[in-house]
């Protein structure tokens, strides 16, 4: 079963930003809205909700029973609730989401252990021996983003060293042995 993510906030920047990060770094599509439409949501136990405090307060009957699946978008932590600080740097937001997804009690293992297309791009370049700066330049992303991808790749595959990642990339047809010679 895959995670279904809903982002509910009146803040357009937050909606677009969270949607982008979830897709780009976790390969998770999400639905965004400014208000809750319970009929549309249905009752999916693998749904995860990113909501503004206003939205949470407006619909307590809906969110309170789903507390372990509701993440409140807030600058400071909220007691007994999951929360995310979207005002922190991008890498920090990614770490927070990563932590939430890992602790999310749902049968999503098959989805999270697979590499996203972007992670595969990064893996190919790591396997070919490029350093972080070169990968960042080649993919037009920041070094922090490269580091986050590397961390996710290592955690998903259980492989840390460059040479083992190269072997994995060859074994899975992402690169050929000839590509190892830069």
């Amino acid at each position, binding site marked *: 079963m895959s995670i279904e993510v809903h982002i509910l906030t009146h803040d357009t920047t937050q909606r677009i930003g969270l949607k982008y990060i979830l897709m780009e770094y976790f390969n998770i599509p999400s639905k965004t809205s400014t208000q809750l439409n319970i009929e549309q949501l249905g009752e999916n136990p693998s749904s995860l909700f990113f909501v503004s405090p206003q939205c949470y307060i407006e619909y307590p009957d809906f969110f309170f029973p789903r507390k372990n699946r509701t993440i409140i978008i807030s600058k400071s932590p909220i007691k007994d609730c999951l929360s995310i600080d979207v005002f922190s740097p991008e890498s920090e937001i990614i770490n927070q989401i990563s932590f939430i997804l890992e602790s999310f009690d749902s049968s999503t293992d098959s989805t999270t252990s697979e590499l996203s297309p972007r992670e595969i791009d990064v893996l190919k370049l790591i396997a070919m021996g490029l350093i972080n700066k070169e990968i960042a330049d080649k993919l037009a992303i920041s070094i922090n983003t490269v580091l986050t991808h590397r961390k996710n790749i290592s955690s998903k*595959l*259980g*492989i*840390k*060293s460059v*040479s*083992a990642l190269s*072997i994995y990339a*060859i*074994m899975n047809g992402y690169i050929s042995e000839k590509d190892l010679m830069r």
Partner: protein
Amino acid sequence: MAIISSKKQLSEIIISHPEVITLINRFGITLGVGDKTIESICTEKNLDYDFFVMILNTYINEDYFPEKILKSFKAQIIINYISQTYHYYTHYMLPNIERHFALLISHSGDNNNLELMQQFFIELKNDIIKAIDADCTQWFPYILDLEKNNNTKNTPQIKPKHNGSQIEDKIDDLKNMFIIHLTGKYELNLCYAVITAIIAFEKDFKQNNRIRNRIIPLIYDSLKK
């Protein structure tokens, strides 16, 4: 876990913790220990039984690390033990993995993945040999010299070339490649032999590295004072 004392029969320890067979071996103790206590076997072999018991406990119990006791031993005895362990790695454990890897490949038909993993193992083995060589030819002689003469004011200070963490990562990678990512046909029993040998080596290497990284620098500091 109870701490082992030198009054215990060694056979009882081996039966409860068979993984120590590889450890006693590097102290020159072989199987067929009878009902003798650790103390009597060590006396016969002219070994320091306090040191042997301490290493035995450190090896069996990962949470046990008697820093003060270890520090009280001479650098010579700890370096001798680590050097013996290195010898055991290069002459027994690594060749054993290598031999089984070669047999696994020859008995598994056409599986390119195993050959790639063997290539990675060879790289790892070379890293280990290089690290061991740096310790045995540079760092250890320097510390022993310091202990013996305590006169190294005119010689340049030698620092360890590595802390072994990259090697630990690579051993973990190799293990995970087998457990998580192995595909294609392979001979089951030989694959089991390779993976168990890698796991045994990983545990041994980590324990030995713990002593190397935490105790030798402390001894070095106290010798420098």
